[in-house]
């Protein structure tokens, strides 16, 4: 197995007297999809914010490509190659796909006062990158607002990949999507993994995680309950661990296995 791109050891995060994270160990290797599973309130969001440089951990160490590292800001993490696609996506519905794709990082041509946004190149790159992800845009000037949720997710992922992400953190990318769109996003994750990028897939849906995950880590009450590889664990077992043991099994029994 290759060495992990990023390794987070025994991360703790306290907010005053609230312990949000109490010893989380997590790593991602190139070309794998590592799923972080946990119920609402388990500490998933706090953890990914620590990983993407938004929060600094109270305790614990982060090793990035073999070297100890501490991110001062989200920008540091972004420059190191850790891209996060948050649920709100950082997309502007009124702007075109191209303008969103290159927002803040516009390609230019010309010099001095004639330096201008190279819109033709930008359009071309956007169309190609989106096609690689399996989405055929009507045109590069199509507004993001006209895209479906899954397509927007894909634009955000494509943007992160294009700008050189080594680790891609996806915060519940499938939680608000329909069946077909979920399948598309999972296929996108598969493609991105194929390009050698380490994907961190955060979800509370075991079935979505099982569909693409190589390894699974369960987070419960701010602690990791261990990591399992694909094939070592069943969906039912993961579901149980997320819910924190017995009650879920009982509840599932009474509901006839519908959860």
């Amino acid at each position, binding site marked *: 197995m290759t060495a992990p791109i990023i390794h987070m050891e025994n991360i703790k995060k306290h907010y005053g007297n609230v312990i949000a994270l109490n010893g989380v160990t997590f790593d991602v290797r190139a070309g794998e999809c590592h799923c972080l599973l946990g119920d609402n309130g388990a500490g998933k969001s706090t953890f990914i914010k620590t990983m993407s440089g938004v929060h600094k951990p109270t305790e614990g160490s982060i090793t990035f490509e073999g070297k100890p590292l501490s991110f001062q800001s989200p920008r540091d993490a972004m420059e190191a190659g850790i891209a996060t696609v948050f649920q709100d996506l950082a997309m*502007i519905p009124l702007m075109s796909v191209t*303008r969103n794709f290159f927002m803040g990082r516009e390609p230019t041509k010309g010099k001095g006062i004639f330096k201008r946004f190279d*819109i033709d190149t930008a359009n071309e790159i956007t169309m190609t990158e989106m096609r690689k992800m399996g*989405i055929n845009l*009507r045109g590069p000037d199509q*507004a993001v607002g006209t895209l479906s949720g899954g397509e927007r997710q894909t634009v955000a992922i494509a943007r992160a990949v294009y700008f050189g992400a080594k680790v891609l953190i996806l915060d519940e990318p499938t939680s608000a999507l329909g069946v077909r769109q979920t399948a598309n996003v999972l296929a996108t994750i598969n493609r991105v993994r194929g390009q050698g990028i380490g994907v961190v897939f955060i979800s509370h849906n075991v079935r979505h995680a099982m569909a693409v995950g190589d390894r699974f880590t369960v987070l419960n009450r701010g602690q990791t309950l261990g990591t399992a590889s694909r094939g070592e664990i069943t969906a039912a077992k993961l579901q149980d661990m997320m819910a924190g043991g017995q009650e879920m099994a009982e509840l599932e029994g009474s509901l006839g296995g519908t959860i």
Partner: protein
Amino acid sequence: MSIDTLARADERVKSESVFAKLMKRPELGAIGGVVLVTVFFMITADHTMFTLSGIMNFMTPAAQLGILGIAAAMLMIGGEFDLSIGSMVAFAGMLFGVFVVNIGMPLIVAIPLTLAIAAALGATNGMIVLRTGLPSFIVTLAGLFVLRGAALVGLKLFTGGSTQLRGVREAVEGDFLAPIFSGDAFGFVMRWLAEAGIVDSFKSGVPKVPGIPVEILWFVAFALIATYILLRTPVGNWIFATGGDSLAAKNSGVPVRRVKISLFMLTAMAAALIAIITVIDAGSTDARRGFMKEFEAIIAAVIGGCLLTGGYGSAIGAFFGAIIFGMVTIGLTYTHFDQDWFQVFLGAMLLLAVIFNNVIRRRVTGER
């Protein structure tokens, strides 16, 4: 699925006609408005309205408003308002008047100084908005009163009690910069055209239109530069992004604070430019200068397709919005209608534009 099969067009997407594409441009409403207003005055107004001198007549106020309107449009696209620009015209006019009349500065010092002070005040507006997180509507409403009052107090202070400062024309006469900020340009072209019999001239051979008023040239140049910046530069992309969703823009690396402060500086400087042009033109300045201009500028921007919520709009739209304004204000004097219909027309136009913009926005974002 391979890339080849995807390269085929999606069968569910109908090809868009040129008309449908045009329907999505923000400035469409304003251009349609110009056509409608032109047709209206073609029918109702005296034919002299659309002669060269008639056109200059309504383009001059259009240009004065338009420079403010384009700046206001850029600020609105960036997601903020500036209600203090009308008062800024009065305040900058007062400063400029004091500089050239009381202190006797040459224009090459007085103009940059006036612009710089206005820019600093604009930056202050922006800083307060960003620091407090309050809506710019309220912050600049305070500016509206503060600057108007300061202009009044300043005028009384420097004139010994009067609210009007005279003698600007005499003070700037002969200054080499004066022709850039006042009077008519391209007079030689007009004389040449008059000799050739292409434009109307008086019996003496002097052309009826002595030249193009400089503010019209400023107006056209500003509209072109603003459009270029918005559509073809990274900064333009940042302005749209900042207005569309400032948090998303910030997370993507757009310098949101710098963009907003620069836009506040731009609107303030546009107001100062109008102050300089109109004060030299009138030869005096008074405390009522620029009265209500902040609202008229915003109306021009909205007619031009700007959304009140930011992130969408166009400088060319504001350009045409201001022309509609000029045509209606001046045009009514060429008709038999009571001139005071102007305000009724203005309100109706604003309401119509806002409703129309909302429809366009839904069309662009595909909301149903």
